[in-house]
Every structure is written in C-alpha cells, then in structure tokens.
C-alpha cells in the first residue's frame, strides 16, 4: 500500500521560501498571487495493513517537526 504525507509550515510560521516564490511569480507577470506556502510531499511505500495510527506515529516522531509544521496523511 502507498500513503502520502503532506508536511506544511504551520499557519503563522513565516515561510521565507514561499514568499520568495510569490515575489518571483509577480516578477513573471502573474498578478493576483496573494500567498504561496511551500511544503513537502513524502510518499511512503508500506506493508499492507499498516494502520493510519502507525503512519501518524511516523509523522509525530520524524516526518514532521510539530513545533513548526503540520501534516496531512493521504492513504
């Protein structure tokens, strides 16, 4: 089975890379880009039967730093 984990900086944590991308889009003439947040997509190839609880545990222990990041699991 496969699972995807999307890790994003929490709202309220300044994302300097997202800001730089927003400025670059503006410089290319794309008007109206009001915000850009950049995150990570992690694909997991898992043994069948791996539970969402286990994936959540992986996120809490390693994949996300919950001090600054939030995560979303897509199975």
């Amino acid at each position: 089975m496969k699972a995807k984990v999307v890790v994003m900086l929490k709202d309220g944590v300044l994302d300097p890379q997202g800001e730089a991308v927003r400025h670059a889009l503006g410089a290319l003439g794309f008007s109206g880009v009001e915000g850009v947040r950049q995150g990570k997509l992690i694909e997991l190839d898992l043994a069948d039967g791996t539970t969402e609880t286990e994936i959540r545990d992986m996120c809490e222990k390693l994949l996300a730093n919950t001090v600054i990041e939030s995560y979303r699991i897509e199975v």
Partner: protein
Amino acid sequence: MKAAILVFPGSNCDRDLAVAFRNAGFDVQMVWHKETGLPDGVDVVGVPGGFSYGDYLRCGAIAARSPIAGALKSHADRGGYVFAPCNGFQILTECGLLPGALIRNAGLKYICRTIALRVEETQSVFTGGYDLHQTIRIPIAHHDGNYVADDEALARLRGDNLVAFRYVNTPNGAMDDIAGILSPNRRVLGMMPHPERAAEAAHGNTDGTALFTGVARALVSA
C-alpha cells in the same frame, strides 16, 4: 575533565570543537553516531556544527533520532553539560532538549561572516566568563538559523533569563534576536554562532575562548 564530541556523517566542526575543549584542558573523545553510549565519566558533550545527514528532511532531524541521541538525552537528564553550536543547536531542538526550531534564514541566503553578539545571561558555566551585556564577535555560518518558538516558549525563555546570546543586528530573522538559549537547569547551551572558530590566536579572534574555559573552571571547582 572529560569531553565527548559526537560525530555524525556530515559533521564538519567536530574537530574544531575538540581542539577548543582540549585547549581548555579537557580529555576529548570523539563518539560516532552509531554508538549507543557515551564514554564513562563524561562531563560535557559537544554536539558539533556541520550538515549532519546532509540536512535531509530537516536540519538535525535525522541526527536527533540516531543511536547516540538516547545517550545524549540521558546525559542531559542527569544534569550533564551539553554545548551545541550551529547544527548542534538544530539537533537539540529536534531532540526536544531545547524549545523552538530553526528555520530557513529570512533572507534565504546562507550567511558566513563574523557578527556581534550581546551576552544576555551570565548565570551559566558557558557564559559566566563574560560580562553581562558585553558585546563579543563570533562567526556564523548557516542557512537555517532563524529561531522560531511559540509565544509560551518565548515568554518562558525571557522570564527565566534563558536567552544566553542575542544578535546585535539580527542577520537571519530570528525571533527576539535570539542567537543562543539555555535549558532550564542552565547546563545545556545551543547557539547558532561558532565560538569554537574564535578560540585561539591563530583564528584572529579569541572572543569564544571564555566559553570553553568557563566550563573547565566550573568542573575544577566542583
């Protein structure tokens, strides 16, 4: 007096840190990240700068979960001294030994230069050799030194005087100009600047020396 310097794949300030501790009078042993214990009788553990595990996932994230990390945490829990510059600071926040996190510099650039730091707290063995509010010059070399923490953690750092160093002119966007912080028992110091790179005459700057001699003095008189 014994110091142990942890070495991860990608550490690059481990030998600088070893020399600084040795010059302060320590017997220094290097400890590979795959070890699960520290040598007997270690007084201080150095967690060096560099790019442990290539900064993969997040700076310090993988090192913080490596086999030696458990021994590092036990050492700190027992009240042992830990000094962690640069990537070491990132590793300690990832371990949960210090609060907050270090994210990409606000200006997105890797910054490598000598900057001015203000000593904000002298009640620790690391900073006791400085005068309160003294300005010292110490090199920085990092891409992810932008310190962030939630309001509660920041309030605790300020309220308990655990901010050891602040930048005079913050180069990286760090909240509250924070360059280095102490643990509640004041025996763990994490900081982005590199005192070990300003610790002997050949460096052209010895402003960092007092940090290492301070730890040595505390152990001798203990």
